[in-house]
């Protein structure tokens, strides 16, 4: 049964990955990318890595792909122009691709875990613990220093985004909520008797 689902997920994933590259409309590309991510999550589930599966859906489908979608729809990217030099670079690109593929094949064929790796495992997972629970057990205890460091990395990213994009323009009218709340009808609304046919 698992084999059936494996081939189902794998086929759809590879097919949609191809569509991502070949689709003419970039919005379709992004939508097929989401489909590929969902099937990837299915493959992770089959492999018993349910945490990675959830992460893939939440982070990649939920955030990254939607961000791509916004970028594609909001920025006016001329894809025809981008593809102009395509034919010129195909031979070089294909050559590099073939070399990398051959190398990866060599690595995959000639690769096996070392004998010592079983005894070196830092946090072996007991058979009856799901890997989400196992991660939870070490993330805030053994690896708390990494957790804090990641927080600093995110802080840096936030400061960077603000530094590079926030413009303080001098002549912009800003909302002053305090002032708005303090307004009442007595102070700001003025009733006037307007004489007929003369105006204010």
């Amino acid at each position, binding site marked *: 049964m698992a084999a059936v689902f494996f081939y189902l997920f794998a086929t759809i994933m590879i097919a949609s990955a191809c569509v991502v590259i070949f689709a003419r409309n970039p919005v379709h590309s992004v939508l097929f990318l989401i489909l590929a991510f969902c099937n990837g999550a299915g493959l992770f589930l089959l492999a018993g890595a349910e945490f990675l599966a959830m992460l893939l859906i939440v982070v990649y489908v939920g955030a990254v792909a939607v961000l791509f979608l916004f970028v594609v729809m909001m920025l006016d990217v001329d894809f025809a122009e981008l593809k102009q030099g395509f034919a010129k670079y195909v031979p070089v690109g294909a050559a590099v691709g073939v070399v990398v593929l051959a190398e990866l094949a060599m690595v995959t064929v000639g*690769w096996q875990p*070392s004998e010592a790796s079983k005894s070196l495992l830092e946090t072996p997972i007991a058979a009856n613990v799901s890997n989400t629970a196992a991660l939870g057990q070490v993330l805030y205890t053994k*690896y708390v220093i990494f957790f804090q460091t*990641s927080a*600093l990395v995110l802080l*840096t990213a936030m400061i960077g985004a603000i*530094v*590079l994009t926030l413009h303080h323009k001098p002549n912009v009218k800003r909302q002053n909520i305090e002032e708005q709340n303090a307004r009442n009808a007595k102070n700001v609304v003025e009733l006037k008797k307007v004489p007929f046919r003369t105006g204010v």
Partner: protein
Amino acid sequence: MPFLAELGQHFLPEVILAIGVLVLILIGAFRGERGFSLVDEMAVGILGLAIVAILLSSKQVDVAVFDGAFIDDAFSRFVKVLALVGAMVSILMSVDWLQRNGLEKFEFPVLVILSTLGMMLLISADNLIALYLGLELMSLALYVMAAFARDDGRSSEAGLKYFVLGALSSGMMLYGSSLLYGFSGTVSFDGIAQAVTEHPPLGVIFGLVFVLAGLAFKMSAAPFHMWTPDVYEGAPTPVTAFFASAAKMAAVAITARIVITAFPAITTQWRQIIVFLAIASTLLGSFAAIGQTNIKRLMAYSSIGHMGFALIGLAAGTEAGVKGVAVYLAIYLVMTLGSFAAILAMRVDGRNVENISDLSGLSRTNGLMAFFLAMLMFSLAGIPPLAGFFAKYYVLLAAVDAGLYPLAVVGVLASAVAAFYYLRVVKVMYFDEPAPDFDRSPLAIRAVLAASTVALLGFWLYPAPIMDAAGAAAKSLF
């Protein structure tokens, strides 16, 4: 050891930087643009405090902390002091430049400290996760700083180029790390050293190559140097000074640590890679710089060449070699900071100028600065008795002792070629017709220029402090 005790005893400099930077952000957020000079001064103070904390703990024994995530040893303390000095001097030199160019934002010192914190984590990283987190913390802040002058097209271009290529190199490094982890079942360097035996499968070699490629990118060793000239030229000059000084310390240090502590069994394999990087970098650094007219680009190629020399020492793979690398880093730091002080002093009528021809006849318009810069150039070229000569001497000696004669010969030849463009700067300053005089530069920049020259001249009279510290540092890696 309890968590807080480890933080206090072996992680104090990092804790000082982390808490200090949060305080600075709050001050900056509440005081806005007016807070720039206060934040700037406090940033220098925080970095100084971290240096004091390291120097006070310099007699401690080497110990791994946080379950082997980081290591507090003599090597990490030595390079951390170098990185902190680089960061501190970069901030000191930047104040005036940023104010003149309308960039006096409090985020600048904040980013410098965050990046320095990343470097310190990177320098003392003892497993692959710590390595990656330190590297990203350092690089993310550097990408933003490269684009700090966001209204300047060249600066934005520099930031974007650095970011795209940096992300690519991080990806390669992560792929290599995953291969290593998959093979050995552990991310700790000691564990990898136990798992990797004399004849490892191809996958391990691939992992090693990918990891070293990622690190070579960060230290801009050829053939992973393509970004360097453009980024160095485009980024604001104080940022370039920071890139060329502190960032290199961390990248070279972690490269030395990972090959020596995690791969002692396959020295012959990683030596091939390091030797190739060293030869390519020294040759490229000396030949490509000949045609440059912009002094920042010249310094970019010069730094590529110098990284090649540092790698010559590492290629030896011996204690003497690592000692040579440590000495090289210290002297390179002084030379780079001094040269960038001179570049920051190049202002004519309130405009920054960066062409070598702008230095023409400097000996007649500003004799003292010409003398300082000439000494720096002689030292960069490696002419005795200046410190630059001893830096090259120790790495080449280590390479010869390890039997790497061809590498040492290439190093000497490249050094001879590189001397041409350093000496050309001296020739332009002393024998060409004077160009317009430079504006009077601020005290901090003149002080850095003078101090670095004195340090380079004084090294051969009293080298003991640096040599002893470097010797202890090298010893702790083996």
